[in-house]
């Protein structure tokens, strides 16, 4: 009998040498780096090593940032032609491309996501977002939003930790293209690429105060939301916090857009291209460790192909490479924080106690850092908590359905409405299902695809407004009605 070989991929680590991380950071206000007063550590979630210390912005810092943004708006940015504004954005895009490797390594160290993803997805998309919006700055009259669209003024933007640089691009690029200035707060655990972005703004000679970055925690975010000098709030994060912001802002004249949570159904019909559907399922929930608001976290399998698909899915999951995010062959990286790992672990225990059958891909998890093996729960129904609540981790709940209408009903049976997936080789069915599904982004025979030209956002409790495309511009222009 022939000896079965095993093709072990030797470690293929990306070098850290391309980044220089300072031991301490302040804020970026009025075009300058200013010292912070209090600091907290930020760690590499794959190793628990302390990477740096981030400033915790207090009222004075937020005030200074809003003041700088207002000054820049009034004296410079609102007076500048769209043509010239656009050219700053083109410069920023180019420099991001030039420093792409630096950004990718830094993002992986700070966030825990695999270097392959930072390199091939996050950073290129972020640069592309700036390119796209650069071209809108002098074409706003063609966006179908009025012949003389006007900016709001100063935008306060709060972004999450799952795609730190990309979420920054989604916020800053359209805001600036539309003529606003910004005060942006990156997430507590992932501030480093935002601070590197501040350097890019300097290299691009962006006028002082157009972009301001203040770091901190939830209290800092609340200060921004509450600040009277802010005209427009843009928030991406949990539905829970989104509702708090909506209530806070209600009595004011502030304009708000929210991009919140999801519990997307990924529907696999019997006539799907099976192998590609399995890839789509894996991509849908394990991409970015499942830390994705639009993750396909509920698999809805047509009952007559369930067994075949589950067998292939488990076999495919066993090939997922979990480990050092700096290794170029890693598919699944670290969970972003201890807190998040706890949430995932707790909800998974709930899944066990609710009677779901748990199966995890066999893999060796490193001893330091925060890790969770790719996991599925079968035998899940709509009445399980793990089918309703966002886990935000590499955990898939598997349900079945008999008829297409049942799939739609189950898919829509949720307060969320961010995204959905449809797998079928029949065109009319794909279009029928996409018509029925109450979700802002529908992926048919693909999943987790993003493009600056493609509007992204949710129905129902998944949020207000869209980001990207012509539709995404309306968030940053005054007088266009929205929620």
């Amino acid at each position: 009998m022939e000896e079965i070989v095993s093709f072990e991929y030797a470690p293929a680590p990306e070098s850290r040498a391309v980044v220089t991380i300072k031991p301490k950071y302040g804020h970026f206000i009025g075009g300058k780096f200013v010292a912070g007063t209090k600091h907290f550590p930020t760690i590499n979630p794959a190793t628990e090593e302390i990477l740096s210390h981030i400033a915790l912005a207090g009222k004075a810092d937020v005030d200074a940032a809003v003041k700088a943004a207002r000054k820049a708006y009034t004296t410079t940015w609102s007076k500048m032609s769209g043509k010239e504004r656009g050219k700053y954005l083109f410069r920023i895009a180019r420099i991001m491309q030039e420093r792409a490797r630096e950004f990718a390594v830094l993002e992986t160290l700070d966030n825990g996501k695999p270097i392959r993803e930072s390199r091939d997805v996050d950073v290129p998309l972020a640069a592309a977002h700036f390119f796209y919006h650069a071209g809108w700055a002098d074409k706003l009259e063609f966006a179908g939003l009025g012949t003389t669209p006007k900016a709001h003024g100063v935008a306060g933007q709060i972004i999450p930790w799952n795609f730190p640089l990309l979420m920054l691009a989604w916020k800053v690029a359209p805001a600036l293209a539309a003529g606003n200035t910004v005060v942006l707060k990156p997430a507590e655990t992932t501030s480093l690429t935002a601070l590197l972005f501040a350097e890019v703004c300097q290299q691009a000679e962006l006028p002082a105060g157009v972009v301001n970055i203040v770091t901190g925690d939830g209290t800092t975010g609340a200060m921004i939301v509450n600040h009277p000098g802010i005209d427009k709030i843009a928030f991406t994060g949990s539905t829970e916090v989104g509702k708090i912001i909506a209530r806070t802002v209600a009595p004011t004249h502030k304009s708000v857009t929210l991009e919140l949570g999801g519990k997307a159904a990924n529907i696999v019909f019997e006539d799907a291209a099976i192998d590609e559907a399995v890839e789509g399922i894996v991509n849908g929930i394990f991409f970015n460790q499942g830390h994705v608001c639009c993750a396909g976290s509920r698999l809805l399998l047509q009952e007559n192909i369930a067994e075949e698909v589950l067998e292939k899915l488990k076999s495919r999951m066993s090939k997922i490479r979990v480990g050092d995010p700096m290794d170029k062959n890693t598919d699944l990286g670290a969970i972003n924080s201890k807190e998040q790992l706890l949430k995932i672990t707790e909800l998974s225990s709930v899944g066990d106690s609710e009677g779901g059958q748990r199966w995890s891909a066999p893999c060796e998890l490193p001893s330091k850092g925060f890790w969770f093996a790719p996991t599925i729960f079968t035998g899940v129904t709509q009445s399980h908590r793990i089918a309703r609540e966002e886990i935000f981790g590499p955990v898939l709940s598997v349900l079945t359905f008999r008829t297409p209408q049942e799939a739609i009903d189950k898919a829509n049976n949720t307060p969320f409405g961010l995204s959905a997936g449809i797998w079928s080789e029949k065109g009319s069915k794909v279009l029928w299902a996409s018509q029925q599904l109450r979700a802002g982004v529908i992926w048919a025979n693909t999943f987790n695809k993003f493009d600056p030209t493609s509007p992204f956002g949710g129905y129902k409790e998944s949020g207000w407004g869209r980001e990207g495309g012509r539709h995404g511009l309306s968030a940053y222009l005054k007088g266009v009605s929205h929620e």
Partner: protein
Amino acid sequence: MSNRIDVKKTYKLFINGAFPRSESGRTYEVKNAKGVFIANPCLASRKDLKDAVVAARAAQPGWNKATAYNKGQILYRIAEMLEGRRAQFVDEIISVTGATKAKAEKEVTDSVDRLVWYAGWTDKISSLSGALNPVAGPYYNFTIPESMGVIAAIAPENPSLLGLIDSIAPIIVGGNTVVILASTKAPLSAMSFAEVIATSDVPAGVINILTGKKEEIAPWIASHMDIDGFDISGLNSKSHGEIRIAGAENLKRIYAFKSADPGRILAFLEHKTVWHPIGL
């Protein structure tokens, strides 16, 4: 102390990413504003036109298939390269037209900015000109703009650089490839611009630039059966009629424009409408 003799440039055609002379061997004289000889650019022949069209046709499917993002990047790169070589273009404009330095600088500045403006259109034009049409029936009905193919153009006599760019850019934004005849009296900007194109990652054959006589070339273009559209902005309106008559042979889409406008992009786009049932 002797005066240095400078090395004068030979100006050739730009076809398929290369710089050939006219196959006819013909040239014509270009003098500067003071009537002093500057150069002998090529006088393009009918065969040169044919070669350019063959190159443009071969390059078209690949250019069309490039993503909008990629096309935008390339147009922006052309702007980068042009900005980097401002001085040369300013000098050439001054030398040939006798314009003031301020005017020449403005033309080059506007040319760079115009390229940037068009670069930003590649990934937006279909959001504006495409549509989902609410037909009365269970059908998905969507209209998609698509490129036409090979478009020819006659650049305006002046401004020789900005006018050239205003002709070329909207054509290629839409995924078409172009064969353009430069200003006859002031062709140097066009030839130098060809050098910029050649260093901007533009695939060979996407842009082809000829120098020569409008009265010869325009009718040849009009009657060429493998050219899909014709921008005659640079032609005197007296000849528009006969050009349109000749162009009718293959129903060329023929336009004359007055300014920069997204309409110039739309003019050379086809619109395809697709129906698909919605149902189980």
